[in-house]
């Protein structure tokens, strides 16, 4: 696996923690949503950054409870066509103003690279043979009709802004902070 960096963020190094394993002091860990909800302050005091592995079936209501505790998020796609992953990322950014890293894992396809970036993802974990195609896909389109979380304003706005050109600046949601 290789990590495709969509936004130029400093990717989080972390350990994926099995449910019965405790974090080491100061260690960045990713745990299931259930565990994140169940853990007490001692857990958060011990660990460094805590992230959640969010499956696409995670109800939005659960995000309410975890968003404030997250340092980063991993959204797991069971299939490339499971578009709930995009909505989950949009919601983290839009409803909770989440600024940390959002990573996609699972069988997403290179042709989704810009969709991921625009929905608010920073990084994607892909099999190494897909790396080239993923990177090529990132520069495929000059612009889109929607303003997005990759830092691009919509064509609709660009049309009415003097001297405005479109293109991804790469760090939209963080730049805005």
């Amino acid at each position, binding site marked *: 696996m290789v990590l495709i960096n969509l936004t130029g963020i400093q990717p989080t190094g972390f350990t994926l923690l099995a449910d019965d394993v405790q974090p080491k002091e100061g260690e960045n860990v990713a745990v299931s949503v259930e565990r994140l909800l169940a853990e007490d302050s001692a857990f958060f005091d011990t660990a460094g950054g805590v992230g959640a592995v969010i499956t696409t079936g995670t*109800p*939005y209501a659960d995000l309410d409870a975890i968003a404030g505790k997250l340092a980063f998020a991993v959204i797991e796609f069971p299939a*490339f*066509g*499971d*578009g*709930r992953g*995009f*909505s989950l990322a*949009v919601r983290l950014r*839009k*409803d909770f103003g989440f600024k940390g890293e959002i990573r996609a894992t699972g069988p997403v*396809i290179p*042709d989704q690279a*810009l*969709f991921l970036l*625009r*929905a608010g993802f920073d990084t994607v974990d892909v099999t190494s043979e897909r790396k080239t195609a993923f990177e090529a*896909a990132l520069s*495929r*389109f*000059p*612009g*889109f*009709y*929607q*303003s*997005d979380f990759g830092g691009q304003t*919509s*064509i*609709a*706005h*660009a*049309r*009415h802004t003097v001297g405005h050109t*479109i293109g991804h600046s790469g760090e939209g949601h963080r730049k805005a902070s």
Partner: protein
Amino acid sequence: MYAYDTYDHAMVNARVAEFRDQVDRRMKGELTEEEFRPLRLMNGLYLQLHAYMLRVAIPYGTLSAGQMRKLAHVARKYDKGYGHFTTRQNIQYNWPKLSETPDILQELSDVEMHAIQTSGNCIRNVTTDQFAGAAADEVADPRPYAELIRQWSTFHPEFSFLPRKFKIAITGAAEDRAAVKWHDIGLVLKQNEAGEVGFEVLAGGGMGRTPVIAKSMREFLPISDMLSYLEAMLRVYNEQGRRDNKYKARIKILVDAMGIDEYRRQVDAEWEKIRHVPIDVPEEEVARIKAFFAPPPLPVLADAATEVDELENANFVFKAWLANNTGAHKVPGHAHVTISLKPHGGIPGDATDEQMDLVADLADAYSQSEIRVSHEQNLILPHVAKSDLPALWSKLDEAGLGTPNAGLLTDIIACPGLDYCSLANTRSIPIAQTITERFDDIKRLMDIGPLKIKISGCINSCGHHHAGHIGILGVDRRGEENYQLLLGGSGAEDASKAAILGPGFNEAGIVDAVEKVVAVYLGEREDDETFLSAYRRLGPDVFKEAVYGTD
């Protein structure tokens, strides 16, 4: 109509380049079929029984003469000289080669056309009233809003991988010619008491295995809230629509399961969060788009034209065409004209390259270079001066395009069926051909009056049989083609689901059954009652008796 600027062009060209690369990788074997299939589908390219099929979008059914000429050119150069206009106001080519598809898409891009959103689980191309911007009974032209929705939904970062395909229809007239109640979302432009224009919003309609008529979400939604409200509707659906069973994945099933009130509650809650965040489109952009749809500069003319009266008195066929295929225009002295693609014995919705070229020429000469495609698979010239009607008709008639049957029994919707479609159980086209040959008498057809027959070759319902006054559905009965007869459906503002009358028939039997049903109607009707109202008054029993006998 809408014209691309450099942004629109750049986007569509980028898409063509991307697809060219994907096709190239597939031909070289760098992509497997499994990997390539979703990619080609996202570009409207299906593999059917005999060949690939390319579905090209005609956004909200509006075409320029130049675009129509390009469609003719593609049919001639890359296909077998014809195309098929569909119930979703698109055109399908039945014989393109995979390796030539990128060239076809590039040629289409040159005239501002594409195959984006014609397949896949995304928001499909928005459909509307074929007489939009021309019909006298219109509250407002729906096309600027359809174009806004087109742009908003194109490559949407969040709604391009929905549980299932998603169809939005929009109409600006009280008479619903766009079957909005049969769509995932239907929008009806309305005026409120204060005189402001907005939408009635409907949700959860659809055909297929489980036909459902859309329910009302909101009586009145201000226009400025359109996109934020759609976004809220789609987000709730994207999260909660079923993904475990593709037959239960459409929004109609979700709305049915949670109830329209609960769906509305959740959408409203979502909408509250986002409605005050400006969504994407500044007011100048709405104005820019609207300007493209400004009414054409038609002069107000006298409503009567002597040329028309003379030919009407001399030629019965012209008289019938005038009555059936032309309708009231906003501007006095003009009409909108329906060019029937339903010649008796012909293939519903098919047009040859020559016919397409001719329609383009006639649009230049008589209709401000504008053409429309209807969901009933006909072509429309929206802005014709009445005094031009005789000349127009005779040119159409010479080319086999003058059939005066719009809205009559032989104006049949039929899906491609087993002649082309890999999902089909039965053929549809030959049934339509036999029925139209059986009823090949314009006087008899006019006596029967408005009657919509709709034929699907399988339960996917591309032929809208659920909404047919008479619907015909092809089923597989132990490897044999079998046809079910349904009665009493409607796709109009009085939408209703057609009901199965009884056991199915073979190819000859279904045509006889249709004839018997029509005979019952003629015998039982009161005054100028239409077939549909007679059926609603009489109920199915008399029809059942006539078709199946008593016992």
